[in-house]
């Protein structure tokens, strides 16, 4: 079974994709295995694209209040 993509770091997911693609390109896999690796690769590719893609985020300032609490304020 394919395990969950989870919240692994981008670079880790990227390396896994490269590894799957390298295996696919070697061409020593059966059709079933190829399909299986293909599935894992495209899942991870989708996951990575999801990490990169998204709405523009705002910039915040981190401040400490007088009683030592942290608070975030929007900048600009």
């Amino acid at each position, binding site marked *: 079974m394919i395990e969950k993509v989870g919240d692994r770091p981008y670079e880790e997911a990227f390396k896994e994709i490269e590894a799957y693609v390298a295996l696919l390109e070697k061409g020593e896999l059966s059709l079933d295995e190829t399909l299986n690796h293909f599935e894992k690769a*495209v899942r991870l*590719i989708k996951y990575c694209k999801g990490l990169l893609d998204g709405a523009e985020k705002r*910039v915040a*300032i981190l401040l400490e209040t007088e009683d030592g609490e*942290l608070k975030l304020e929007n900048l600009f």
Partner: protein
Amino acid sequence: MEPRFNKVRCWQVSELNNYLKELLNSNPFLNNLWIKGEISNLKKPGSGHLFFTVKDQGSSIKAVMFKSRAGSLLVPLKNGMEVLLRASLSIYERDGIYQLYVEEVQPLGIGDLHKTFELLKEKLLKEGLFDTDRKKPLPKLPLRIGLVTSLTGAVIQDMLRIFRERLPKANIIVSPAAVQGPEAPEAIVKGIKLLNRHGQVDLIVLARGGGSLEELWAFNTEIVAREISSSKIPVISAVGHETDFTIADLVADLRAPTPTAAAVIAVPDYREEFNKLNNLLDKATGRLSTLMEVEWDKLKNIKDLTVLGKPEKLFAMHLSELSQVFEKAETLAKVYLEGKSNKLYFLTEKIDGLSPLKVLRRGYAICQDHKKTIITSVNEVEVNQAFEVRLKDGYLDCLVQGVKVVND
């Protein structure tokens, strides 16, 4: 003891001095002063304490640096030295004089700065603060970035612009800090500390634009170096121009030549990453479709293999298996590649052109028994047996009502 001002009162000298001392000590401003001036009348008695006067052109003040603090001096004090002092102001009751109690001394003369730099560098190097194995790895895709820098000036604007261009999704949290002047070292330390306390960033960039050695001095102080070193979050230093090297650069997990370079190093360009991912997708898709093509050709060849007793049966079995693979590939392409890449069309079209499903689409069917074994002969079934018929778009549950043998 509260003096009574309403009546004439005779004070003891020590009472007065003590009162004034308490008055001064209760003022927080006088407890942490930064003073710039020149050292004169330096005395070094056997006690190890240092006594001197700090003066500017018009005025002077007495100062003492106790042995315990004097031990932290990197460069020995001498008369005529321009310095920046951190001290508290209080009263020496015995003599009734007010004086500075010096905590630390920062030489300001250019020669002394260089010497201080070298000595601090040597000290921290010996402690192992610059060791490569202390460097924390930087995340490739930091989606939350802490920025320790001044809110004013071009540096922050330039960096924010680059972050926005390269990775619009990144969240930026600025921990504002003065990056120049006597308050800068502690402001920078606090900026790094706050981000660590907050804990919600993957990376810290410590930045300041170009300047003279004096202007960049905060980045050569021991407290800043130690704070960078003890930060749990990796730190990129980006101080001054390419040619400026500071202690902060040496102790940081990565040194960027300039603040704008730091922004480029810190985050990947999402467009470049998309391209890389699409290239990998191309390769994977290409490989899968090539293999499917090969398998399909093999399958077609089976039909022509007259050496085999029943090539049709073999063909039908492979057809069924291959259909499943093609179907799955098609589904995967639809689910995962949808709208993200033209490769979807490449793969699905290719699958379409190749697929054994096409055979079904032309009106052919596959019969399977309850074990999914393909039925290729009327002799394999009995009347009233249930079986399944696979058509292009689904299955029929069927029952054998009668058997007719055709003799060719």
